[in-house]
């Protein structure tokens, strides 16, 4: 099939970008979305035009490296990552608008590649359990109810892709942050640092320039791992508790 691609091109962070239009023929519906872009890049390279820069690594939906705004939706029309989206979700003759994640906390590096270092810094602020290597007690010394473990796991599947931020009208990273707070907060091991964790992570989140959450809910719909809005409620709850405890 044949598609028309409108792609954001921006040579580097300092330059101004613009949308460019490309026609691509011979697209097979078995191609993944990124393989379709690979084919475009081969063509561009052949013509001596700079290929389109975009991020990807695992290409199986787990590393969180990929992420494009496709026709106004983060990761495109299916609930999955960009790398797991296939061209059979599109029709012959479709026009496809491709943009990078837009958030000032995720500055564009080039074309469709953005810098998500802010996520690392939010984790650095407290997204962990402090236990030095070798100082851990025997694993079975602390039983964890199966349901708690399952809930923790379900939200720990966040891949840090940033689609939640990209989709949120406020540019908030609350879903990402809430996922981590809920993951660690569900487990007995996470309790000692529960108050400081939420306070410090939220402070870092705000400092990075993400917007505040007004519970709009676009984030969860864009999330390829279907992280539920519970986690934002949990985040708020923990934050109030921490404040009550004098943080």
């Amino acid at each position: 099939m044949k598609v028309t691609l409108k792609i954001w091109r921006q040579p580097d962070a300092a330059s101004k970008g613009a949308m460019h239009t490309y026609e691509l023929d011979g697209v097979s519906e078995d191609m993944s979305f990124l393989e379709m872009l690979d084919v475009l890049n081969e063509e561009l390279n052949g013509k001596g035009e700079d290929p389109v820069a975009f991020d990807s690594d695992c290409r199986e939906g787990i590393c969180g490296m990929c992420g494009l705004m496709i026709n106004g939706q983060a990761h495109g029309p299916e609930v999955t990552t960009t790398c797991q989206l296939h061209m059979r979700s599109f029709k012959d003759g479709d026009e496809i608008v491709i943009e990078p994640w837009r958030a000032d906390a995720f500055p564009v590096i080039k074309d469709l590649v953005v810098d998500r270092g802010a996520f690392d810094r939010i984790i650095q602020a407290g997204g962990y359990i402090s236990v030095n290597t070798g100082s851990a007690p025997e694993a079975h010394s602390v039983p964890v109810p199966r349901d708690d473990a399952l809930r923790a796991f379900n939200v720990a599947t966040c891949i840090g892709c940033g689609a939640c931020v990209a989709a949120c009208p406020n540019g908030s990273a609350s879903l990402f942050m809430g996922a981590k707070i809920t993951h660690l907060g569900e487990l007995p091991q996470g309790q000692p640092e529960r108050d400081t964790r939420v306070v410090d992570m939220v402070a870092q989140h705000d400092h990075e320039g993400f917007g505040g959450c007004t519970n709009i809910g676009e984030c969860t719909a864009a999330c390829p791992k279907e992280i539920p809005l519970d986690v934002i409620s949990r985040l708020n709850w923990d934050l109030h508790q921490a404040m009550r405890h004098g943080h």
Partner: protein
Amino acid sequence: MTDMPDTTLTSDPSHDEPGDHGDDAAGYYTPGEPIKDTKAPTGPIDERWQTRKFEARLVNPSNRRKLDVIIVGTGLAGGAAAATLGEAGYNVKSFCYQDSPRRAHSIAAQGGINAAKNYKEDGDSVHRLFYDTVKGGDYRSRESNVYRLAEVSTNIIDQCVAQGVPFAREYGGLLDNRSFGGVQVSRTFYARGQTGQQLLIGAYQAMERQVAAGTVEQFTRHEMLEVIVVDGKARGIIARDLVTGEIETHLADVVVLASGGYGNVFFLSTNAMGSNVTAAWRAHRKGAYMANPCYTQIHPTCIPVTGTHQSKLTLMSESLRNDGRIWVPKSKADCDKDPRDIPEEARDYYLERIYPSFGNLVPRDIASRAAKNVCDEGRGVGPEVDGVRRGVYLDFSAAIARLGKDGIEEKYDNLFDMYARITGENPYETPMRIYPAVHYVMGGLWVDYDLQSSIEGLFVTGEANFSDHGANRLGASALMQGLADGYFVLPHTIRDYLADGPFEKVAEDHPAVVEAKKAVEDRVAHFLNTSGTRSVDSYHRELGNIMWEYCGMERSEDGLKKAIDLIRTLKDDFWRNVKVLGTAEGLNQSLERAGRVADFFELGELMCIDALNRRESCGGHFRAESQTEDGEALRHDDQFAYVAAWEFAGDPDSGGMGTPVLHKEELVYTAIEMKQRSYK
């Protein structure tokens, strides 16, 4: 899949007589001195690690701040090491090419992680895990290392649980286990199908905590392109900042490579797009031996290739083979029919036919090879790519009839969904199609018992080293090795080396530094200035085809020799005719790939030479010349019970590979007896 009955077959007379295996690789390599000392302590096997830990010298806490440690890689091996060394107070610099340490390829591991906890009271023990791993590796691994791996495996689970890794649990709140890869004990800990992700996030968080504490400095989107060796010691790396394009020099007292596996030499593999050999290969070129490079693991249950646009292959958990039946049509004429219209008697359940006792559950290498054979005969199914159908059916209709659709859904739902998303077919209705794909490499940089390479001060951990899996890796053991190396082994052995430090500072204008940096700059300039016509990816794809065809599931003398010629020709063309657009300043993804592919060429050649030299079939390495009468792998312990450690002997004029030097490390088993595998 190792705990299969043993038959002591070593004396089975078949095609090749013992001691008569020729020297296939003669002319392609130079024989070198054998490796005598691996630094493994002697004495009873269960005391060796304790002995080594005790003997390794300590570093005064106040000195640690002054010791700079570079760690390349943030997967399980690198991330765990960065966290642990940071906690100990060393000054750590951590590098990865992705935009966050959390994205290292360990994240993709699905099945689980082994540990000898014996929580099920089913007879597991450190010794049994050790035994299974050595046997699974087809007696081509170093026993001291493997024993240590089994020994520290239990600490890994404690550590991960304390970090908040949400392993699956039973209703009583205790950890659940499953049996994996056919072993008879349940020792695999898992977090649904995302174990690697959860373990990596644990290590990542521990590392980020040290970043906040100021002991670890993280360099993301940085690619290591050269190691700096001063007076025979590794003292730093040259890295390219992938965002600014700047070529940076980073100096240190010790360098650790935890840069993962090189399966991407095959172009199509289950590895991440960026997985590369560059870090390891650059070290190899500076003197680090490369061990057993031809040992590759091919996983039988991957989603087949659909066309020439394909960029990577997706693994489907091995567990599917528990309920799915594998078949192809008996007749070529049926290959393009709808599988549901092919009657039972026209189907060939070839694994059940050839291996009646293990059927669909034979080990990975056997299942993979059998699939290749039927497709080579022209009985493959699915779309034709380059004129061949490469796929076999994995049929659940019997299982659905037996367990009901709900039963199957409960067991495999996410895998069926994934399959449907990728192929657009509904596996509840038509049989799945699968084909083998490159998945893991057992080969890697040679290291001694301390995980130190043949370059002093250069340590190698995780999939990047060769050490623990011999010729074949058991399921759920790579994660175990990565974390064992990172959390529990390296931090002890590296201190013995660092006890002599801090070493004299190296100046940025030291000739060795200048030389390394210039080499990188020249290479970058070469790629950008070659006004060629072919894209990097097209070369990579062609190299991958050669490797897959001749150095894949089955290797033969003729094929390997042909492959070496083809690789050399293609490599020459690559250096003269590659087309890389853009500039050196700033993000340039074609440039990144060009460097990786350049190193894959040399690696590919060495892999073929190694495979050519090893005229025996062992683990993942099947030589057509070395099989029993009924086509099974035949090992030659009398001649090949060694680690092949290759030394780079580049030709300074052409810049080519020259004839690499082969150093043999004899494998001696004191705690275990060598046996031949059989699955009939």
